[in-house]
């Protein structure tokens, strides 16, 4: 292995799998553990057959792969921006082709779980003479790998582009800025890529879940989609806490009461949830359910933020905790008792903030 690839594997690939171990476990559980052992082969054969024989199903599966690609792209871009990884900019001194191949190999390793399953799809596709969908799968994966590698190589070659590049229009706020605007501005100005991909993933997750055909109105489907979107916010919450510890230290010395601080934090997250609220409203979620979903989602994100005042920031612990909360919430939504969870989350979030905010060592 080339020294460059070695570094990229240890910084990006290993870390990606460590961070997402819980998610992989969850997917593995859904794909293999809930099926009877003697039916696993038949189940996956049917799944692959369905993917290859229905264009709509194939598009849905490709959508899921797209979400995975967005997830790893977001992860790698955040890692590139970490101060301890700034030395990776040295890679731009490699020839363009060398840099591209190193990144392509890294991205391929991160994309491996999808590729392994796709090998079976391709094998089954050719064996069952579904040539066109099989070729579509191969072309799709090639496009994902090449385009993300190209984008990442470009980021390393042109790091200065980041400051001029934004998915969001610059809006000058004409009045004195309230605290929530500080946080939103941090995301819009400093982490536009992370914000864009998180929001795209989140909105797409809701849209995808709401495509599931049902013969009656069921708000839990929308909530499950929303929940997957919320889980993808863990990086944003972590980054906002880091921002608080680095640039907002002065805020701690300001004469602002804890209830006010709590409300401001909740306001930040409710503003961040506007795209999801829009998507839920557009997909016809009833007003009462929509209100419940917003209160639930804001409590969910605020709780995670408050949890991060308990000890020194640690991404590994944070990921494990958010995954745990996601799994519990997933079950509670399935069993339709998420309203009780909402009340508990609000209570716990305020309790933690009240107990830990001034105890936290900056």
């Amino acid at each position, binding site marked *: 292995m080339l020294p460059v690839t070695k570094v990229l594997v240890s910084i990006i690939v290993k870390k990606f799998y460590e961070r997402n171990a819980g998610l992989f476990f969850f997917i593995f559980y859904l794909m293999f553990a809930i099926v009877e052992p003697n039916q696993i082969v038949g189940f996956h054969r049917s799944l692959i057959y369905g993917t290859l024989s229905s264009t709509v199903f194939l598009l849905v599966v490709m959508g899921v792969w797209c979400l995975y690609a967005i997830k790893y792209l977001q992860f790698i871009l955040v890692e590139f921006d970490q101060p301890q990884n700034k030395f990776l900019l040295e890679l731009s001194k490699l020839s363009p082709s060398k840099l591209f191949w190193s990144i392509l190999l890294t991205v391929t390793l991160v994309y491996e779980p999808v590729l392994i399953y796709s090998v079976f799809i391709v094998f089954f596709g050719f064996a069952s003479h579904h040539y066109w969908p099989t070729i579509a799968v191969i072309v799709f994966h090639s496009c994902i790998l090449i385009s993300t590698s190209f984008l990442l190589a470009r980021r390393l070659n042109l790091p200065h582009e980041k400051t001029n590049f934004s998915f969001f229009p610059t809006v000058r706020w004409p009045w004195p800025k309230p605290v929530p605007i500080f946080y939103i501005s941090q995301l819009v100005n400093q982490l536009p890529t992370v914000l864009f991909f998180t929001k795209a993933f989140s909105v797409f997750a809701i849209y995808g879940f709401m495509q599931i055909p049902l013969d009656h109105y069921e708000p839990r489907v929308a909530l499950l989609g929303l929940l997957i979107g919320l889980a993808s916010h863990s990086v944003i919450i972590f980054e906002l806490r880091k921002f608080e510890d680095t*640039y*907002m*230290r*002065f805020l*701690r*010395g300001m004469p*602002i009461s804890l209830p006010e601080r709590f409300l401001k934090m909740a306001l930040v997250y409710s503003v961040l949830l506007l795209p999801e609220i829009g998507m839920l409203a557009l997909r016809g979620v009833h007003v009462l359910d929509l209100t419940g979903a917003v209160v639930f989602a804001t409590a969910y994100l605020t709780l995670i933020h408050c949890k991060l005042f308990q000890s020194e920031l640690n991404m590994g612990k944070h990921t494990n905790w958010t995954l745990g909360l996601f799994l519990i919430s997933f079950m509670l939504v399935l069993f339709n008792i998420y309203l009780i969870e909402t009340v508990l989350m609000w209570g716990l979030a305020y309790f933690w903030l009240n107990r830990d905010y001034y105890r*936290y060592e*900056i």
Partner: protein
Amino acid sequence: MLSIHKLKKQYGSHLILDVDLLQFDSGLYWVKGANGSGKSTLLKILGGIIPFQGEIEIGSTSLKKQTTEYRRLVSYVEAEPLYPPFLTGSDLISFYSTTRNASKEQVKELTEKFNIQYFVQNPIGTYSSGMVKKLSLVLAFLGNPKYILLDEPLVTIDKDSVPILLALVRKYSNEGMNFIFTSHQAFEATGLAPIQELEVKNARVCFR
């Protein structure tokens, strides 16, 4: 009067401050000590920035029991302050003015005194460290705090700004504000008097 009772501060197993009783009456105080002795930690504690064991009060207002009220009475500036780089100096001045009820006249006076009106509309990310320091000093004076805590106030500001800062300290001190500084520079030479000296050594804080 600002009083400290049974203060203890540890970083891991390292005891950094152990103060049984210490009282700051009105006036100017200069906290001295070697690097790592705990001067900045003391100011951060008094500013309500970091946790500690013990009790701190201004009059009858306790930092632990009346957290918001206490914070209204103190203003703390770090030695090397950091602010969100995308905000402008004006954004922060407006924010501080709102939370500390500072008047427009005071904002005008301070921005003009420190000569920051020329760049205060620009994002803080474009400032030099000296410009950030001047902004932080303006923020420290805003409102009507009883105690202003300045950690290394003379560091990074240019020579011309030092007499401006000292004149402001004199003026606000005459109006009843109290100051606690930490500094490695000699305050005797600044003509700022009378100033009471304290030393942080072996986790203790003593008047000299």
